[in-house]
């Protein structure tokens, strides 16, 4: 059966009232909602984001406050194993210096999510820009794709190390110690992870460029600038969004790996990766300290991946049509 099943049924009601079509994002949303994993992922992501953003404000315990006499509290474990006199002042417990783990998880999440989002946005912006330019202007294509290959061949770790050494002090002077490192890590992750997006976008732009509506725009006399913004960008949005979700997940993972290798933030500046790495040596005695940041990372990445999956389906008109 060929297509063309979609004939508009005449809407009931006032026959002269303009019919405002459901914005197609509404369709996307409807399809997205039918993807259970994606919905669960979205709910989790919103939840954890709120937990991290609003949580510290409600919780009120500073993540760096030391309370050495209350160290190694583990109310949940104690409650589970029936130890009496469980104190719920620190529901997730405290670490070996008496810092509140819940507050640390919230604060760590703020940073990890912020790193993830910003690095992802940076990578997407660079990748989309390079991809669109390379795809649209054949003259620049070869050059930009070689540049992409070059970046693919650049190792992340040495690059980060070098950047760390070169730019840390200027950035620290300009933005303060945490923000400076934050900018460094975000840029480091961002500029080493845009290449996939660029390739995908370029491929799509090359295909879209030959589509008749782009030709139509040119026949109208629309200049390249507006052809790109009006006709190309909106239509490469779906691969961009899918690689964005992957990029967010990768950035969170990369930050945790960088923290594990000891290249990250100041020692009293928690991120999920650092919390996890710090807790690994005490994994047997205090498994819950691994579990909180570990769960936070894994579930966030999982959630984001499912959202990506859902988006991919929702943005695919073939699937949406079914």
């Amino acid at each position, binding site marked *: 059966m060929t297509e*063309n099943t979609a004939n508009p049924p005449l809407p009931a009601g006032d026959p002269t009232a303009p019919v405002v079509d459901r914005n197609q994002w509404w369709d996307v949303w409807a399809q997205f909602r039918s993807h259970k994993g994606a919905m669960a992922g979205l709910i989790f992501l919103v939840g954890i984001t709120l937990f991290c953003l609003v949580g510290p404000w409600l919780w009120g315990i500073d993540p760096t406050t030391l309370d050495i006499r209350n160290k190694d509290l583990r109310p949940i474990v104690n409650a589970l194993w029936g130890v009496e006199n469980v104190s719920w002042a620190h529901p997730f417990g405290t670490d070996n210096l008496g810092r509140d783990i819940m507050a640390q998880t919230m604060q760590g999440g703020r940073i990890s999510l912020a790193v993830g989002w910003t690095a992802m946005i940076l990578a997407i912006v660079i990748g989309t820009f390079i991809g669109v330019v390379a795809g649209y202007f054949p003259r620049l294509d070869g050059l930009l794709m070689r540049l992409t290959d070059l970046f693919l061949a650049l190792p992340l770790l040495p690059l980060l190390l070098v950047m760390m050494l070169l730019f840390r002090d200027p950035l620290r002077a300009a933005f303060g110690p945490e923000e400076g490192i934050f900018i460094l890590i975000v840029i480091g992750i961002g500029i080493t992870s845009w290449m996939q997006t660029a390739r995908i976008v370029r491929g799509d732009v090359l295909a879209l460029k030959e589509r008749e509506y782009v030709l139509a725009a040119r026949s109208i006399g629309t200049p390249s600038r507006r052809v790109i913004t009006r006709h190309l960008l909106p239509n490469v*949005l779906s691969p961009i969004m899918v690689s964005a979700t992957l990029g967010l997940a990768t950035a969170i993972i990369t930050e945790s790996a960088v923290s594990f290798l000891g290249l990250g933030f100041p020692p009293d500046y928690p991120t999920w990766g650092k919390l996890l790495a710090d807790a690994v040596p005490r994994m047997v005695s205090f498994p819950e300290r691994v579990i909180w940041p570990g769960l936070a990372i894994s579930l966030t990445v999982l959630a984001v991946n499912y959202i990506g999956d859902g988006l991919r389906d929702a943005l695919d008109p073939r699937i949406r049509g079914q």
Partner: protein
Amino acid sequence: MLDETTPLVRIRDLKMHFPIYSGLFRRQTGAVKAVDGVSFDIQRGETLGLVGESGCGKSTCGRAVLRLYDITGGAIEIDGVEIGESSQSDLRRMRPTMQMVFQDPQASLNPRMTVEAIIREPLDEHTTLSKAEKSKKVLELMDAVGLNRRFAKRYPHAFSGGQRQRVGIARALALNPKFIVCDEPIAALDVSIQAQVVNLLEDLQEEFGLTYLFISHDLSMVRHIATRIAVMYLGKVVELAPRAPLYDAPLHPYTRALLSAVPEPDPAKAEARERIVLQGDVPSPANPPEGCNFCTRCPAVMDVCRRIDPTFQEVEPGRFVACHLYEDHASRAEKAEAHANQQGSNA
């Protein structure tokens, strides 16, 4: 203002070659001669049909005429302005005069824009109308092409093929063009819808005094809509004639074969028809045969056809054909000699 008898569109020796690069250093080793020396005029208010099989270069020709490509050679004069060499920015000022309707109504509409936005785009680009004026104009255009005003805010996916094609036509009409290239506007539509669109095009032509270049592979439909018809084969126009003589007494063997291949929707006549079934396939435009392009499949092929490319010449008033069958002996002999000399000098 130019006088009404000069043609609106004047194409001379239009060439559109796409280079082929190959080898170690990506040298240009050849070219796909999609359009190879096409000439024709279109008078004001008439419809020139351009027919041919897929791959013959008719769509490329249509696009080249509107300078959607940077052409390889030739002259294009539209409404008295030569645009063959113009830069894209100069062309931008010319765009309102000449518009295009595309083949695939699905692919020619941006799926992320509402119908209103699609039709308004040319207005945004070329006019300084206020928002309200633009909206009014869009609604008028929708009326003109028979689209319900109520659907202005809908997206293309909610429309049927025929309705989408109406949107495409409305967009083409937005700037009051004089000349519209219709690139297979009905090929992707259902039989019952094709007639609607063709009627619409005819009505609009009458109403706005439009001039069409109507590209199609459907000979029956072209016969219906076109006043004159050009037949293309492998990048060249092989025959150009007014409708009636072309259909009644085609000159070029290819035109004859093409017409005879069109199925006859009447079993009685179908049985009685004598069909010319061409053998083989169309050669590749990257590697056309020597001599006449049609010589590999021509039922009336002669020796000379395999050596010399026939000239496109007027054999009767208003009828042009490129075939050795219609070249007078003198000119043929002359050409043969020239050819031989050329061969000799090459040798």
